[in-house]
């Protein structure tokens, strides 16, 4: 029932208010003495060079993609798990087939070095 979720909405409102108050309080209290050195990006005392928004390794992207594909797998597992007692052997074989196909992909990614960080 949607009413069951009303308390969560209330909690979202209160938590948002808490975050906003904390961030405003933080901006209002305390001294404010900026100077160029303080405001420059911290680079262990060296003068900062270049932008931090440089392109980075494609490995991070690859990890995120693999995460999405396996996340889908998790979301398929959940309804299966709660129904498992009713589905029985049929459920196991249905999910087994699903997993077997994905396992081919998993092995492929492994063999192609998709999990390696060198």
């Amino acid at each position, binding site marked *: 029932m949607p009413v069951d979720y009303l308390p969560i909405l209330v909690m979202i409102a209160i938590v948002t208010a808490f975050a906003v108050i904390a961030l405003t309080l933080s901006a209002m209290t305390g001294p404010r003495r900026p100077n160029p050195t303080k405001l420059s990006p911290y680079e262990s005392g060296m003068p900062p060079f270049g932008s931090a928004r440089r392109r980075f390794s*494609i490995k991070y992207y690859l990890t995120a*993609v693999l995460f*999405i*594909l396996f996340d*889908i797998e998790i979301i398929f597992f959940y309804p299966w798990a709660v129904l498992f007692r009713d589905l029985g052997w049929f459920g196991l074989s249905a999910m087994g087939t699903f997993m077997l196909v994905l396992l081919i992909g998993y092995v492929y990614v492994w063999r192609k070095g998709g999990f390696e960080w060198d």
Partner: protein
Amino acid sequence: MTVNHYIFLSAILFSIGAVGVLIRRNPLIMFMGIELMLNAANLAFVAFSRQLQSIDGQVFVFLILAVAAAEVAVGLAIIVALFRTRQTVNVDDVNALKG
């Protein structure tokens, strides 16, 4: 709230997504516009699922989520590959296939 409210909201979101695809030149944002359209369709599915008192609409949305994930994974891979060879992400500069 009748189903019409939800469908109308879905129509508005769909149109915003479509306009986004047409007016932006950054393929990432165009892609986000497509996602917006996809989600608008999902909302319509769920609304009709309640209206028709049938679970099929919800199952459809569930499967669409999986399809969307696969689509985004490959689509973004193409954008990344494109950027690596062309050093640009402005779609107007990507016209190698133009006749």
